């Protein structure tokens, strides 16, 4: 049984083509930025970046679906019979990995103080001073850092979030 229903794929393809103003089968960053609710999202640019593989400026439907797949509800996986296959994109671990990558811009598998500051700055805009923001970043890293390298590895990231209901917060449910 397919894990994404036929009608869901059709709907998403319909959405993909309506965003594709250039009608060339791929989406550019501008196509995403045309969505007002996404344009006003403080993390909008990072989210859009998640769709584009390294160094590329266009994403096709397959790539679009792949990135969206991270947000499928986890209960969908129970229906899938393939237990020995590769871990599905929407497993708890992969959802956390997706969030981790939003912080870890240089992809060195560590969230440095600077990277954390960048994300914080995106979320607060001009409303908090550099010093205050720096304190927040320092405290956050201090609490999560276990091996003392003043950066957060993926394992430390997972540990900090172990009590958070990732499945609920990082899932989108279709209405049918």
């Amino acid at each position, binding site marked *: 049984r397919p894990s994404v229903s036929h009608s869901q794929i059709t709907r998403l393809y*319909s959405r993909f083509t309506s965003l594709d103003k250039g009608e060339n089968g791929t989406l550019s960053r501008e196509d995403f930025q045309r969505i007002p609710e996404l344009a006003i999202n403080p993390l909008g640019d990072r989210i859009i970046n998640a769709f584009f593989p390294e160094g590329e400026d266009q994403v096709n439907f397959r790539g679009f679906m792949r990135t969206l797949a991270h947000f499928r509800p986890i209960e969908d996986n129970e229906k899938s019979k393939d237990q020995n296959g590769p871990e599905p994109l929407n497993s708890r671990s992969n959802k956390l990995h997706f969030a981790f990558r939003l912080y870890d811009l240089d992809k060195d598998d560590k969230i440095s103080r600077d990277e954390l500051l960048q994300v914080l700055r995106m979320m607060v805009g001009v409303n908090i001073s550099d010093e205050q923001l720096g304190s927040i970043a320092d405290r956050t890293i201090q609490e999560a850092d276990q091996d003392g390298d003043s950066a957060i590895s993926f394992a430390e990231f997972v540990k900090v979030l172990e009590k958070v209901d990732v499945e609920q917060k990082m899932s989108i449910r279709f209405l049918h």
Partner: protein
Amino acid sequence: EELGWLAARLSAAWLAMVLALIVLPSALGVSLGISEAYMWVLVKTLEWATKRIEKGVKKPQPEVLKIPAANGIIERDETPMEKEIAGLHRMEFQFSDIFYFCRKGFEAIVEDEVTQRFSSEELVSWNLLTRTNVNFHYISLRLTVVWVIGVIVRYCFLLPLRFTLAAIGITSMIVGTTLVGQLPNSSVKNYLSEVVHLTCSRILVRALSGTIHYHNRENKPQKGGICVANHTSPIDAIILTNDGCYAMVGQVHGGLMGVIQRATVKACPHVWFERSEIKDRHLVTKRLREHVADKSKLPILIFPEGTCINNTSVMMFKKGSFEIGGTIYPVAIKYDPQFGDAFWNSSKYNIVSYLLRIMTSWAIVCNVWYMPPMVRKEGEDAVQFANRVRSAIAHQGGLTELPWDGGLKRAKVKDSFKEEQQKNYSKMLVRNGSVG
């Protein structure tokens, strides 16, 4: 030359029939019942087609025909940011804070409230027009045959007829208003101007096979008032002038439209602005105020959304119309998409292809509700007043309301919205002393 003579005879007969059966009744304001008969046949055919489609699809895959909820395809979590992020007792920054923005972002990518309003509404069941054939597959031979007949009827019979009518309507409008315009200002002139405008509107409505149901006629806009309505298409104006006379407001265009504008303004005080004037908001408001103050002048017709929306929702009303003062007469217009899509997607189609699509649809069916007049309350500013009127119109027409600006069809969204979200998030961080 036998053929030429025959063609001439046929054209003459054709024209005579059109004049007798359509133009004359329009001038007199009567109906011969031809449109009603056509609509009856149409409705029966479409009902049959719908049944066939439902029957045909039931056997292979029941899932395919599952119609998405009209309100969306995904569950939207409306929990406000504060509640969602605050969640647990610690109201300080946590790595999981980004989850909220992340999910909101992805929800917007899959389905957003705004961009879907700038494309045509999807139909629940196919109406035998290729252009609306999105998810429907081949069902049966009979259905295809009916579709082919439909194509022939629409393109070979209806289109020439409608085109002829439109030509007659526009020409009469230009000639009629120019003639009336020669008269000195008097009540006779006003009366004749109304007759000309009404007749030509009626002809043009028939040119679109329009079936319009007017509700609550006792609330029709009065002289010296301002009529506001939701905007879906350029023909909105014709829909309204079919039932009453208004002073139009708009920008001067070139080409055929410009000719019509120049002719009509001689007969009736429409308010046309030059392109340069329209940028000056004070000038615009002043002129409109002067017009409204003169109680003998016809009510002005304004579409405060400023652009065409797809008739599923009402977007932000620009406050300018609500600063003029005077009595507002709200009107709600709801088209029935089953018979023809009236929405003008101006980024996709130019006016000519739009008119062609309209004229090859089955018909334009709509409901018009005249609503009780509204005035600005004490202590209410223009924006609040605009929103109040907008709510009333949306409620009456069964449309949803969106606070977004229709201008987003083309323009980028203002940064101030993002800044507001950032401010709200910052308040959460600093308020609870998580600094240091």
